[in-house]
Structure formats: C-alpha cells, structure tokens
C-alpha cells in the first residue's frame, strides 16, 4: 500500500504507471555500483522515481575534480566519503525510500554479498575489470545488469538479461586500455539517465529494453545510434546458460 505521502509525491507518474506500477518500484531493490559521474544521476533519478531500496557502493572520497560531473557532491563535501555524502542527499531528496550507502571497494570478495539480493545491478563503474566482475555475478545469480560507460562527449548503454541476451563479455570481450578519461559532465548525466530509464522500464515490465542493442551517444553531433549486438555462443561468461552454448572448457 502506498502512503498518502507517496501518493502525493508520485502523483504525476502514477498517472502514467498506476499505483500498481508505483508499488513495483517501491518493492524493488537496486544496487548501483559506483557513485561517480554515472552513479550520481542514476541514484538521483531512481530515488525520485521511488525505487524502494537503493544500495550505492563506492570506496572513494569526494575530490574537487569530481565536481564537474558528480552532481550529488557539492563543494562543502570535498574530503567526505562519497557514500556518506550521496546517502545524505538521496535521503533528503526522498525520505520515503531506503538508502543503503556502502563504503567498499567492489572486488571479488565484497561484490557477491552486495549484489545477490537485488532485482537489478547498475554498472556505474569506471573500469572494465570491475564491470566484468559485475557481469560475472549478474550471469551467476541471474540478475539483470544495466551497463553504461562514457568518455569525453561519447557514451554507450546496453541492458543485459542473463540467459536471454548478449552479456557484457559477448559485446566487449576485451577491455580498452586504462586511462584518465576526459569528460564533460553532461555525458555521464545523459548516459546515467538512460540507464535509470532502463531500470525503471525493467522493474515495471514495460517498453522495450536496450537488450541485444548498444546505444551510442555522440555528444559532439548530438546524435544517438543503436547498433545490434548478439550473443557470442563461445562467450566465457554466459555460454553455459544456454543449451546451444559451447562451454569454453570443451574447446580446450
């Protein structure tokens, strides 16, 4: 049951998704891996939409160089833990939801326990080793993964339903080189909002997800293209989920 406060808060979207849809958002648990340029807009928009339980994970503290894009952090927050600062803002923007801000490095020891009890995982990381770990856990636990990544004016988004669609390792089997990436804040803002929109659609069971499609944003030309991607039957992560898949071990 929605409270009176919730009925008021979400009135303009209940017109769209009904109280039943709002209840689905309220009962959902979402983990956002990373409280950076992508994590901030994802968390903000999932919070105001009324996703009932949001876990946001990061290990870092706020640096002045974060402030051109990480909109949950303000000048007064420099030096504070990102999770503390993000938690404070998200609880203020919507006190009707639960925020679980976890100060942790996402690695193979911490991540399984942080993602296995959720309905959706949002990839808001800044490196592929961590993304591959999230993808591995998504495939292991059968939890949808919502991928986003950015550089400069460019961004990419795709949604992954393990066992049904191409996974991250099918699309990007090899990681690009590590770099200190340049970025204009609008790019993760826009990509993060597309990720949040995907999560909301998934939780509501409405619309068409960006599955087996990679959305590519070109901010210099203000153009968006989606390209078809497909499962790799030899994929190291997800081929074992399919009857037609070929286990890597069998190839050796």
């Amino acid at each position, binding site marked *: 049951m929605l409270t009176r406060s919730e009925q008021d808060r979400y009135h303009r979207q209940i017109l769209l998704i009904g109280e039943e849809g709002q209840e689905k958002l309220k009962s959902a648990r979402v983990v956002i891996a990373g409280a950076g340029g992508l994590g901030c807009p994802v968390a903000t928009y999932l919070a105001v939409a009324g996703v009932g339980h949001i876990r946001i994970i990061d290990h870092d503290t706020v640096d002045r160089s974060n402030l051109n894009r990480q909109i949950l952090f303000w000048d007064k927050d420099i030096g504070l833990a990102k999770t503390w600062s993000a938690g404070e803002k998200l609880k203020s923007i919507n006190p009707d939801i639960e925020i679980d801000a976890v100060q942790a490095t996402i690695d193979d020891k911490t991540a399984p326990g942080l993602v296995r009890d959720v309905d959706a995982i949002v990839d808001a990381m800044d490196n592929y080793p961590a993304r591959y770990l999230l993808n591995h856990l998504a495939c292991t636990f059968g939890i949808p993964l919502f991928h986003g990544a950015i550089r400069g004016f460019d961004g*990419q988004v795709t949604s992954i339903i393990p066992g049904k669609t191409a996974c991250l390792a099918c699309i990007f089997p090899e*990681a690009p080189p590590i770099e200190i990436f340049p970025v204009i804040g609008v790019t993760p803002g826009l990509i993060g909002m597309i990720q949040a929109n995907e999560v909301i659609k998934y939780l509501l069971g409405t619309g068409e997800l960006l599955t087996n499609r990679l959305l590519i944003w070109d901010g210099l030309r203000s153009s968006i293209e989606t390209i078809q991607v497909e499962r790799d039957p030899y994929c190291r992560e997800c081929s074992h989920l399919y009857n037609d898949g070929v286990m890597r071990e069998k190839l050796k």
Partner: protein
Amino acid sequence: MNVRVKAFARFREIIGSENTLQLNEGTPVIDALKTLSAGSLDFRDACFDKEGNVASHVVLMINGKRISSKDREKVVLHDGDELAVFPPVAGG
C-alpha cells in the same frame, strides 16, 4: 569495389563519421583499416596495437554484424559492405 567505413566515438573524431574506400574485391578487413591508417597516424595508433594487429578491444562490424575475435584476421570485404569500427569507452 566501394566499402563504407563508419567510425564511432574517438575514431569519429580522428577520421570523421564516414569514409568510402575504393578497394579490390575480397580485401581483408585489416587491410581496409591499414588503408585508413596510412592517411592518419592518430587512427593507426588508436586502432592498432604495437604488433600491428587491430587492438583487441576494438569492436568491428560488417553490415551491422559483429566480427568475432577469432575471425577478425580472416574476414574479407565485398562491394557495398559497411564496416563499422567502434572503440568502447570505459569511463564512468
């Protein structure tokens, strides 16, 4: 034959969004990319590794269909093909 090369993200900044190459029928994909590299050292450095292979993270597609890692050295192009080159971005 004519082959259209469509570039994304950083590659687009270097060589523009679309290039049409005139090549011999059956030219390997890697040779088409080398042709583009001849006109742009920046593209060569971004697209190829030090051994002269297409960098492993670069996604290649012909007519919208991804070329798998194991096929990328042997796939050839035909008249009218569209080759897409896409460097995934990594930041967050």
